[in-house]
């Protein structure tokens, strides 16, 4: 398997020499995606972790054409880049955006919705590390229920974040987008395949990849991949696609691993009570009821 994955992508590095934290899941997603898309990928990255670690003049780390957008403007700049290159006669290129969870689900959702609505020929990849990590771990619209962040402190009165994650995958799908997918850096081959598939589809493509942040999640840097795998295995995340108007589940765990084990491994969930964990487990079960009913396998 490992060789198959490595052999399926470029040996070239396009995102290399950056200063991301050890074990950064976001940088892994960007690195792998660019190895799929190759040298003619044009990356658009908003203000956020990946631009902060990669674009500090004169230390610029992308070896493909790359540009920082405004925080809210990932999708709109992608639109402009794609239209501009096309207007100048280029055909063989891929306009790809890499935005975090805040840049996607919060401040960038309007521009993203506009781009999907226009069906611009772009790939938008949301690397979801479940909080505003670049500014120091503040709650975003994709921070999960119960997570402690620097703006959702865990105390006696409130146990961290009180709201569940916004469902960006189904929000994208509700636009009747040509292709949307969920992924996790813990299942990197699945992610790579989805990026490849997206690169072959005309119109707007949205991939939502879970990309743990050891710094923000409170796990060791060498646990990124394992925890990204476990979030899928315990059923709190899922690997799926939306295409031709239908949802498809790509991976159905035979039996879920323990939600409690997944949560208690992470500093951000350490404070959760049994009741909190049962709320999270119940919401997982409700979600899977929906998935089993509406997603093809």
């Amino acid at each position, binding site marked *: 398997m490992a060789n198959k994955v490595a052999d399926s992508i470029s040996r070239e590095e396009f995102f290399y020499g950056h200063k991301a934290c050890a074990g950064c899941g976001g940088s892994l997603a960007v690195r792998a995606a660019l190895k799929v898309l190759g040298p003619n990928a044009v990356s658009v990255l908003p203000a956020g972790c990946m631009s902060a670690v990669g674009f500090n003049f004169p230390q610029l780390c992308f070896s493909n054409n*790359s540009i920082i957008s405004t925080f809210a403007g990932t999708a709109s700049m992608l*639109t402009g880049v794609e*239209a501009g290159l096309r207007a100048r006669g280029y055909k063989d290129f891929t306009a790809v955006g890499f935005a975090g969870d805040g840049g996607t689900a919060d401040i960038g959702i309007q521009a993203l919705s506009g781009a999907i609505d226009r069906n611009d020929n772009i790939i938008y990849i949301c690397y979801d590390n479940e909080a505003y990590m670049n500014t120091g771990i503040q709650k975003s619209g994709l921070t999960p229920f119960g997570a402690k962040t620097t703006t959702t402190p865990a105390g006696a009165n409130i146990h961290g974040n009180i709201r569940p994650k916004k469902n960006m995958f189904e929000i994208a799908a509700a636009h009747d987008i040509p292709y949307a997918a969920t992924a996790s850096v813990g299942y990197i081959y699945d992610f790579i395949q989805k990026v490849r598939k997206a690169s072959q589809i005309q119109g707007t493509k949205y991939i939502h990849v879970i990309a743990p942040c050891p710094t923000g999640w409170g796990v060791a840097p060498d646990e990124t991949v394992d925890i990204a795998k476990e979030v899928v295995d315990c059923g709190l995340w899922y690997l799926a696609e939306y295409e031709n108007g239908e949802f498809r589940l790509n991976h159905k765990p035979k039996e879920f691993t323990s939600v409690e084990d997944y949560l208690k491994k992470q500093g951000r969930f350490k404070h959760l009570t049994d009741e909190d964990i049962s709320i999270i487990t119940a919401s997982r079960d409700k979600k899977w009821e929906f998935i089993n009913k509406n997603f093809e396998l």
Partner: protein
Amino acid sequence: MSKKFLSGNEAFAEGIRLARPQVISAYPITPQTIVVERLSEMVEDGSLNAEYVHVESEHSALSCAIGASAAGARAFTATSSQGLLYMAECLYYAAGGRFPIVMMNADRSTALPWNIYGDQRDSLSQLDSGWIQAYAENAQEALDLALMSYKIAENKAVSTPYMANLDGFILTHTYETVEIPDREQADRFLPPYETDNRIDFDNPKNMAFSAGPDTNYIFKYKEHEGVLAARDVINETEKEFAEIFGREYTGLTENYLTDDADYVIVTLGSIAGLCRETADKLREQGVKAGVVRIRYMRPFPNEELAEALKNVKAYGVLEKDISFGNEGTVFTNVNSALKKAGVNVPGYDFVGGLGGRNISPADIEKIYSDIEKGTDSVNFIGIGGGNNGK
């Protein structure tokens, strides 16, 4: 050359058609909307070969234009008022990235209270964003600015985005006969956009990067130099424009009867015509009245203003703007120009036209008489005056 009866918006759209933008990002807002409507019709009928992008906000309109410019394409967008403020982040971004985008702004009041009519508080609030700012007086000038704008903005020494301002309704929606240059002549005047500041597959670039304290101010210094370089480039461009199209413009300012004037109104935009008419009338009565119309607020005509005002007895600035708690921003800029040049003559600020309120011939006459007699430092036309550090 052909002649058409066009509104300011339509004239500007005609100029943009001749300029051949490759990407147009469009979002409607009164009183700008007719520009993007006309451009969509030109794309539909094939007379303009551009990617026309229906963005979902003004922020995206300019963000999209920045992306297109980064791809090396000539980009256009248009906005007004709340839209200009909503995209403000992208104004600074486009200027810092040295992307020579052209944008038309229909000058309009800003909420609250809501108001769709013309004043210049929207664009004047963005003087520090790094854009070249031109103010048209009539539809012909609007068309000509549209065509000249790209040549100025794209000049290698300038590489700065360009905002062409048209007074909302008063200019955007009034009709006049406009000369439209021939396509062939326009192409001779304005060649296709060529730049190194773009995505390049043979030589990949990292663009719009961060720059820390050591280098950031060098980029900002270069940005300042770029806007200043537009001074000469505007003059050169207007000279070439006159040679090809036969219409002459006068650079950053346009003077009227200032050579021997005792009392001068400095203003900008469409109200300048009424000021000139009033000056004519006063001249008949023996008052040596004159007018300076500021055509460009950035780069600012420091030297031109000092030269025009150095021998006057007093001057007034008539502007559709107020910087609350101080004075109109144009007044501040004009005073700075005179101070730097050692010109010490009395000057007064006249704030009018806010929210589209009419400025009458009688108002202008009163301004001249107030200038002559001396008045408060800052005067709201028809309301009264006050002094703030006079």
